[in-house]
């Protein structure tokens, strides 16, 4: 079916077209390919995809129900050149956040230099004093980062938020690709799509590199809160694809600062824990004593250097949205580099003058709670009711530290299969970065989330969002388009289904 340009009243950037009838070069071939399909055929494939997801349990738990995370049939495409720029920006950001965390839980140079008030940290709910004195053997606290990006009205990618606690969603990237290669193999023979299935081995290598030096043959596990967690499927997928045990807190025991898992053959030492349990629930001795999904004594075992907890404890302080406003500073200060990716224009409300200015025209801003994730608590000024704004004004006055104000950005739109036609819907992008201590590797593509409601700007799965397979393709495939031989006569590059034979449950909104 033909895809038409539809302009968006909000002035949002159109990912596929630069003007009516004028497709962006990376999309040209896809448009030609899509032309060959009838709407009914697309509908049938779409239904088949969601049925496959349900049969295979590729779902996430939402309000006690297992739901598939809808996969849109139209992939999102990024050219390799543009991707390379993004990946470098993401890696830079991760390196800066690493340096910041090491500093916050160490010498505190950034405060001494006066570049950031200490109170930003001491007032952050995620500042974790028990994390003090835990030094990771290879200095990595962020083994995995999910840096959320959006593309603004001018086509620039900006960072929306950093997720360096337990970013989730990578299983969708892997599973979406797998589903798409099965449902649309012909598209893949026409495009050189960078593969995504090396993620688990990258993560495994990073976890191995993070192991305590004294561990000769380190044992790595994935720690999950259990089957009721929204992202349980992702935990299963990663454990399987890395070939390590998926454990729950009750499978582990700490004795004299060593961690063991209980097996049918007795206890077995554990050296690296890729944990998908929040700090608060991780160790009932240090944090919430009512936690039954954690492991008592774990934090001190890490402090003693016998086990590595990954991602690090206390990383949440870097996710704080007030801290986010300082990240460009971090890049300059710690790395001596110029930030490659911009933040969205953001205002700190603790400054009285700034606060007054924002409060005076609250309806012109997007207000976000500093420690929210998954779109929770966000108020979009232009769409808010008077009552909402009034309540917000009160909340800000009571605790200005708890909010930031941002310029409303019209997220870029992408044609999306809705009903029996293609319509523009807003999207964002969560690329995933893996840090093994010597290199920050960025998974090509990442998770494109799409807000399925018309005009809807919040893309999270818990808000009824869907996702798109995200392709990074070599631009030369476009440049040489005329010379590309027919699909059947070419060797398949990435057309084959990814090797893994894994199941997929959805990842929800761990972060």
């Amino acid at each position, binding site marked *: 079916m033909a895809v038409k340009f539809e302009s968006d009243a909000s002035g949002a950037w159109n990912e596929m077209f630069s003007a009516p009838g004028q497709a962006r070069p990376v999309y040209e071939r896809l448009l030609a390919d899509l032309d060959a399909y009838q709407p009914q055929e697309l509908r049938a494939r779409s239904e088949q995809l969601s049925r496959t997801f349900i*049969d295979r349990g590729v779902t996430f738990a939402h309000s006690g129900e297992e739901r598939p995370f809808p996969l849109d049939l139209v992939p999102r495409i990024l050219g390799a050149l543009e991707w390379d720029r993004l990946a470098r920006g993401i890696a830079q950001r991760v390196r800066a956040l690493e340096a910041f965390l090491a500093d916050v839980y160490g010498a505190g140079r950034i405060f001494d230099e006066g570049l950031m008030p200490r109170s930003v940290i001491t007032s952050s709910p995620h500042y974790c004093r028990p994390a003090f004195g835990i030094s990771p053997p290879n200095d990595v606290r962020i083994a995995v980062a999910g840096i959320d990006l959006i593309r603004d009205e001018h086509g620039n990618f900006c960072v929306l938020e950093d997720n360096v606690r337990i970013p989730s969603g990578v299983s969708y990237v892997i599973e979406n690709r797998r589903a798409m290669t099965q449902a649309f193999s012909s598209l893949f023979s026409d495009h050189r799509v960078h593969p995504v299935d090396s993620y688990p081995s990258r993560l495994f290598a990073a976890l191995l590199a993070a192991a305590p030096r004294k561990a000769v043959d380190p044992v790595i596990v994935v720690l999950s809160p259990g089957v009721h967690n929204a992202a349980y499927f992702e935990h299963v997928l990663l454990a399987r694809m890395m070939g390590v045990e998926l454990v729950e807190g009750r*499978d582990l025991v700490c004795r004299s600062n060593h961690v063991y898992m209980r097996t049918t053959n007795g206890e077995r030492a554990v050296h690296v824990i890729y944990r998908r349990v929040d700090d608060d629930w991780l160790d009932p001795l240090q944090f919430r004593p009512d936690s039954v999904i954690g492991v008592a004594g774990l934090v001190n075992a890490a402090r003693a250097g016998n086990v590595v907890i990954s991602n690090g404890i206390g990383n949440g302080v870097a996710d704080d949205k007030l801290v986010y406003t300082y990240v460009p500073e971090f890049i300059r200060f710690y790395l001596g580099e110029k930030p490659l990716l911009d933040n969205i224009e953001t205002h700190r409300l603790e400054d009285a003058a700034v606060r007054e200015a924002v409060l005076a025209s609250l309806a012109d801003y997007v207000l976000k709670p500093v420690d929210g994730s998954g779109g929770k608590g966000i108020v979009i000024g232009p769409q808010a009711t008077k009552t909402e704004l009034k309540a917000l004004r009160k909340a800000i006055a009571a605790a200005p530290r708890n909010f930031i104000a941002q310029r409303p950005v019209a997220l870029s739109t992408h044609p999306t299969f809705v009903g029996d036609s293609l319509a523009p819907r807003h999207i964002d992008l969560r690329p995933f970065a893996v840090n093994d201590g010597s290199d920050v590797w960025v998974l090509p593509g990442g998770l494109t989330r799409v807000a399925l409601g018309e005009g809807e700007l919040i893309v999270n799965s818990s808000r009824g969002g869907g996702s798109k397979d995200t392709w990074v393709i070599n631009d030369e495939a476009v440049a040489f388009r005329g010379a590309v031989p027919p699909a059947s006569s070419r060797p398949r590059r990435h057309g084959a289904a990814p090797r893994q034979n894994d199941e997929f449950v959805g990842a929800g909104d761990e972060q």
Partner: protein
Amino acid sequence: MLSRLAESLFWIGRYIERADDTARIVDSYVHRMVEDPFNDESATCRSLYSILGIEVGPERLNTAETLQTIVYDIDNPNSIAGALNGAYENARRSRDYISSEMWVALNTTRNELPKRESRARNFGPSTYLGYVRERAALLAGLTDATLSHDDGWRFLVLGRNLERIDMTARLLRGRVVSDENAPDWMAFLRASGAMEAFMRNTREVDDANGVAAFLMLDRLFPRSVLYSLNLADECLVEIQPVSQRISSGDPARQALARARGMLEFIDPRQLIEQLPELLEMLESTCFRITDAVTDRYFRHEEAVAWIIEEGL
């Protein structure tokens, strides 16, 4: 392997077998319950409950409610739907271990049950029961064909065989207490899938002793008690850590050996007289083995509540 994982696999084995066996037993009653106009409905239902070891009150029982409890009630772990759900829940917990084909088969089975149930309400339970048997066979096949035959698989097979012994013992007991509402020996053979195998072996279909001996003692028929006991023992031997060259007095194997001993040396011709005693022994053997295996291999903390010490 992780103790919790081993336990999940053991229960997957048990639950799938339970669903299968329950479907077979119910099937052997269905004709009487649904189609026989001269049948005492309440007494037949009572007989079915008693074979399955479910206690019921003295009230009058009817077929619809009985089928609801024994077949469709997903919240009852002894019902067919409940057992399949139990297998599914354990498979979720061991999803990183079992093969994806097993997982998909279990997941789709569970998703399919409500549809099958509403169809069964219109056309009778036989299609539902047939579906369950088919899926159980598929799952058993996938278990053997797509899992490595390592300890995890052995725990699953162990669970399957213990459940099978338990169910065969129950089935026979229905006959032993000479319950006139229980299906006849032939129906039992059919329920066990043993009809042809038995007929090939002996032609005396009216010989109660022969049927009992076949279901208890046959060395080649895979649903016989002795066959299952042998398989269970093989699993236990191989699960045992290799380092233990001297038998450490595994209580599970001891219980198993006692049961095997009793069956091996019995005179088949006198089986029927000793059957009540043997069946009781078998049931308690299954209990003892499960306890011993749990105690030895499935040691893991249940999610525990911690208590805060408040002090100065």
